[in-house]
């Protein structure tokens, strides 16, 4: 069967592989909307959208097996990477960063490269629960560590509370810094629980657990994730909703007819 036939077959029957099912779970599409979705996608857009959603090896929340790199490498290192609760054994160039291993070898492209020099936060992942920059981490140093990427935050199709809050509060625009912002937020929830301090903490000597972070605290602690689109205010609100059940929403309003009348040029 050609790629197109496979696709059409799926479209008609809704026959999905396990991995594809997971994709739909992540997308939040249930059985009937799945079929609708498949129909809704046009044949011409197949290669773009199918590629987005469908190559099973691409969707690798469970770090699916990619063909191992056949290229002869200098200074090859063998690393067992435990990513999103599944282990993948890779032969890598010793120079490979965790970021490039994720993106280029494991097709886990959710983790983004924004600078490759530790200056933007787009590549933030969780290593043993702590937020770290994958662009300045050598993959070789990750043996035995538990790595969680954006692809591993949702469980059984249920988004992480932070992911949901970002959606609801429009905590992004282009979406490129978003995985980093989300991983960072997830880690920050725990840092606050542990009572960790920041530069803007008033008195460092006062140590309390389960902190409720002020807006200034949240902004300082999220300053390691640059959002060039400038979605900061919504990111802060999204974080607050999960962190302190603060349900404040974006602060726009429409001027009332009365306001308009009063403001008219006299």
């Amino acid at each position: 069967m050609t790629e197109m036939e496979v696709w059409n077959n799926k479209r008609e029957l809704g026959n999905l592989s396990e991995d594809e099912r997971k994709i739909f779970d992540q997308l939040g599409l249930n059985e009937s909307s799945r079929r609708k979705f498949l129909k809704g996608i046009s044949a011409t857009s197949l290669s773009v959208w199918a590629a987005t959603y469908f190559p099973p090896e691409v969707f690798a929340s469970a770090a699916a097996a990619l063909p191992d790199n056949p290229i002869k490498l200098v200074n090859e290192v063998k690393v067992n990477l435990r990513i999103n609760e599944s282990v993948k054994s890779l032969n890598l160039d010793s120079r490979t960063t965790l970021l490039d291993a994720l993106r280029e070898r494991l097709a886990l492209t959710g983790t983004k490269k924004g600078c490759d020099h530790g200056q933007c936060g787009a590549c933030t992942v969780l290593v043993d629960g702590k937020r770290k920059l994958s662009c300045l981490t050598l993959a070789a140093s990750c043996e035995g560590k538990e790595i969680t990427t954006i692809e591993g935050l949702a469980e059984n199709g249920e988004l992480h509370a932070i992911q949901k809050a970002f959606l609801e509060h429009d905590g992004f625009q282009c979406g490129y810094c978003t995985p980093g912002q989300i991983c960072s937020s997830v880690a920050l929830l725990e840092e606050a629980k542990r009572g960790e301090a920041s530069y803007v903490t008033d008195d460092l000597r006062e140590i309390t657990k389960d902190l409720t972070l002020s807006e200034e605290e949240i902004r300082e602690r999220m300053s390691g994730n640059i959002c060039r689109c400038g979605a900061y205010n919504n990111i802060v609100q999204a974080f607050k909703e999960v962190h302190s059940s603060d349900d404040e929403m974006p602060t726009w309003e429409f001027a009332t007819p009365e306001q308009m009348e009063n403001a008219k040029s006299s």
Partner: protein
Amino acid sequence: MKTIKASGIGKPIDRIEGRLKVTGMAKYATEFPVENKVYAQAVNSTIAKGEIVSIDTSEAEKAAGVLAVLTHKNAEKLKAFEEEMPELGTTTIAPVLQSNKVHYYGEYVGLVVAETFEQATYAAKLVKVKYKEETPDIHLDKSRAKAYKPTESSDFSRGDMDAGMAAADQTLEATYNTPIEHHHPMELHAVIASWNNGKVLAYTSQQMVDNSTIVISDTFQIPKKDVRVVAAFVGGGFGSKLNTDRHVILALMASKKLGKPVQLTVTRNQMFTNTGMRQHNEQNMRIGAKKDGTLTALSHETLSHTSTFQEYQEPCGNVSKMLYKVPNNLIKHRLIPLNFQTPCSMRAPGEATGSFALESAMDEMAWKLKMDPIDFRIKNDTQIDLSEERPFSSRLLIECLRIGAEKFGWKERKMEPRTNTNGNWLIGYGVSAASREAPYKKTSSKVIISLEEGKAIATIQMDATDIGTGSYTIIAQTASEYLGIPTEDVTVELGDSNYPVTPGSGGSWGAASYCNGARAACENAIAELKRKKNIPEGEEIALADLLKQNDLTKFEAEGTAEPSEEFEKYSVFSFGANFSEVWVDKDTGMSRIKRMVNVGSAGKILNPKTAYGQIIGGLTMGVGMALTEQTKIEPNFGNFITRSFADYHAPVNLDMANVEVIFLPEEDKIANKMGVKGIGELGITSVAASIANAIFNATGKRMRDLPITPEKLIMAKLEPGVES
């Protein structure tokens, strides 16, 4: 046509592609699974002007995994510019590696392709280039004599400037500088380029897909139909991805040579030199006013730079010819060719920088007149665009100012600087007015409707892009509105040159153009389905029933929208007002934005949630422009000493503060049928002025050179007349 209306336009629905973004599944340029791809890394010049004497690629070629090294010696011939100093446009060809000449520091001089990213980046360092260096022109100040009037001149005058100044009771002359800035979208410019049997497929991060195919086909001299460009998700652009830059061409050259797809990512460091910039503008302002605040004269003269081989001009003065009622007006713009890359449009080109000068100068004048700066602006309001001598389609600037003042609590502002303090903080309030042209361009789209389990579902296709602007969402809302089906039943497919042509995302025309394009296709579909069954146009009937009556399970229609003749008779602009409260530390000179109020009158708001995003995004970039962002030039070598994201300070979360946004209810039907105007650039316009004005109000220091950094504030003197 409103039989079912779950969520049409105007509703603050969540972004329809949002789930893909929060799960990391949205695919940006280099994330498409392309088999057998190899990796490239570009090599940059390390001099600002001169010639390549020799290039030694032998060591690079020997390095492990290296497949090819391209230089001007072995690169294929590409289309060359036909004239000297051509204007840079979004369809301008992008020839690269065509000669041994170097025009600026960082110009591409080679490309290394290898099996892996690590191999390519390493081998690129092994390419050895010898130069014959010449003294570059890198100083605006020292090259004034070379200033010239651009081919496409933006000069303008009305009345008599000198007479206007002479008639004034109070005059002001001041010069404002905005530094070189960089767009720095978070997604690095990148491409996976495949050249296969003469056919091109490029997954690339671009704002304008159709123009991108034109650049590629023109540069390689191949038919446009053989070029396919895909930009399904674009990680920000802000103008830098309007042009199809040379890395795209480089990657294609390599792919053509190797017969394999080539992935090339421009590094953050290269994004300082190879993907455009906003140039340094020196803006000289002169204003004359009567005691009562009536403006008698206004001039706005800009000096900036372009490259030595291409012309780009940011029309800074445009805002000063239309914003206020002033009889005597002079606008000039001169360019100096310098040895830097060609600048290009950056968010609100002209307005963002021009309004900093104009709206700072207006604030200075208000202070001289001891007049409230809002009253001063209102006094000089105009409903006629004096530069075009035609009315504005709609102009609610006064409403923006007044409603904003009310919301912000402008009454509490102290006229005298340095009188509002809190501990070590000096507190200031600032205001500025904003205007941004609201263009609208010819746009086509296709709608595919099908019947699924008795329900009508639809897919909209167009080559539009969503660069964070919310295009996916507002197009779905538009289709929902005009087809009468819930937004959930609309799929939107964008960013593929196989789809109907749109103008792409830029110049704030995206929302108006895309949505009207989608509307046209939907209206055509409905009209045709009705016509077939002789159903009167006005009759309400559900889309599903319409399909059933036609005995169809699938139906496609295309549509094109374009500006009306009426449109040409008016000046169509969005207007706004910015209010900032800024706290400045009296000792450290560090500033903190405390809150901002933004009022916008930008036509029909399609989705207040995504529109709000556009506004706060603009405000954030405006804060960066005012306080943190600048690219500095090395004075001896002509490279940018600001060379990384650690040196170039894009604002971080803590730099921002509470923002309140008010949209005015406005439907400008002259602008277009849906009454939509642009908002993506209105947000950044004049923000820097409102902050600089607030800093004056806080400190008594008039900061005319951006950005307003602690070191500048500490060294600045009080403005004459301010009490310490």
